């Protein structure tokens, strides 16, 4: 039974994402829209914007991730696909890993790719761009993995979206702190390898532990 299902599942989920390709753009557009609210709310002064740039970009990335998390297992749960996968006897942990991977490809990777544009918008000081991209690249997969635990726990609840954000934001706090501190160090021309190292360590830990937690949560939700 092993890993044979992973490829079809990956293919199916990417196909589904492609079917609704306008929706593929949505996490991106959401990010753009949220980031652009800040100048409107805070005022267009470039100094203030530069000062809060990292925080805003990372918080927007967090929000974009959380908003897209709710759908991660929901449609599979509601249309009965999840039951089918559970009955098929495949390891749910591997299935969870694939789901988190697809989520990152669809919602996380675009954020990484888009971050230079956001940096220009928010007037991020020059030296910070590299650290921003690196922190996003290392941090967003962890966001997807941790978030998937919350999504799995809330999938059987009617309106899981907000509960979900309550569950996962506390888990995201360390990532947010590490990442923003990496970028601020970079803009101050300080070394920031330490923070990136910790982010990488977090990613490895999440990769090994989160799938099991997700699988247990899914089983619970199905009962």
């Amino acid at each position, binding site marked *: 039974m092993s890993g044979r299902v992973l490829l079809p599942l990956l293919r199916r989920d990417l196909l589904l994402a492609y079917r*609704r390709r*306008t*929706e593929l*753009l*949505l996490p991106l*557009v959401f990010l*753009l*829209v949220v980031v*652009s609210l800040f*100048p*409107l709310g805070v*005022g*267009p*002064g*470039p100094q203030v*914007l530069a000062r809060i740039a990292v925080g805003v970009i990372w918080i927007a990335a967090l929000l974009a991730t959380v908003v897209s998390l709710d759908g991660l297992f929901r449609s599979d749960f509601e249309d009965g696909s999840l039951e089918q996968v559970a009955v098929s006897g495949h390891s749910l942990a591997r299935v969870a890993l694939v789901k988190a991977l697809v989520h990152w490809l669809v919602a996380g990777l675009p954020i990484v790719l888009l971050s230079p544009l956001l940096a*220009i*918008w928010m*007037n991020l000081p020059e030296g910070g761009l590299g650290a921003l991209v690196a922190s996003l690249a290392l941090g967003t997969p962890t966001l997807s993995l941790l978030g998937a635990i919350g999504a799995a726990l809330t999938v059987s609840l009617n309106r899981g979206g907000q509960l979900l954000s309550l569950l996962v934001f506390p888990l995201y706090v360390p990532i947010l702190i590490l990442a923003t501190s990496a970028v601020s160090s970079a803009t101050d021309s300080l070394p920031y390898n330490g923070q990136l190292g910790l982010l990488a360590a977090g990613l490895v830990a999440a990769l090994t532990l989160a799938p099991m937690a997700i699988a247990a949560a899914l089983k619970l939700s199905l009962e």
Partner: protein
Amino acid sequence: MSRAKRIFHQFGSPPWLFRFAGWLIPWLWLVCIALGAWGLWWGLLIAPPDYLQGESVRIMYLHVPSAWMSYSIYLLMAIFGFCALVWHVRAAEIMAMASAPIGAAFTLVTLVTGSLWGRPTWGTYWVWDARLTSELVLLFLYLGVMGLHSAFDEPRKGARAAALLSLVGLVNIPIIHYSVVWWNTLHQPGSVGVDGSSIHPSMLWPLLIVALAAKFYYGANLLSRTRVRLLEENRHRRWARAWVTGGID
């Protein structure tokens, strides 16, 4: 039936519109290319460089016409959308939805050329100036209309939903525009304004010509998209089958 009403109905009849558009499109392209070539040649090669901005001012000949188009296409899209919602004219639904990507493209061109222009003149790709901000919001409005349209799998339903959204957006555009202008002047008096008050005639004429060419481009592009759509949707009908097999034009 009054004359106006008859024309209206004729316009809504797919085979008639298909044939009429087919006849009109080559002429539109012809005028568009002639005017575009003339205006760009004049603007990019002949017109004098700006005494302040130098050669970079030539971006204006792309930037300003697309900025004008970005708003006027939204207005047209909303008008088509209104006809679609009130009279259920399929042709109006198609034309409203065909307008959206063209308008979004012009908006994007405005933003990109503006950013590229901003680098040499303002020293930065982007500032939260009022005009820039409202152009960005306009892009979001277009993306919303297109996203909503394509999210439905029944095309007519998607078109009507998006038309409704475009009308709501139309009501809001002036409000957004004024609030943003007011916001920026309030927060940041004397910001880097876009100075368009005194354009020398030697620059104004090529600008107007390119702007006219852009209008013809829109017409030609819109009708081409409409024709494709009409053919696709009516593939079961006799007139469409006959046209495809070369029976009639």
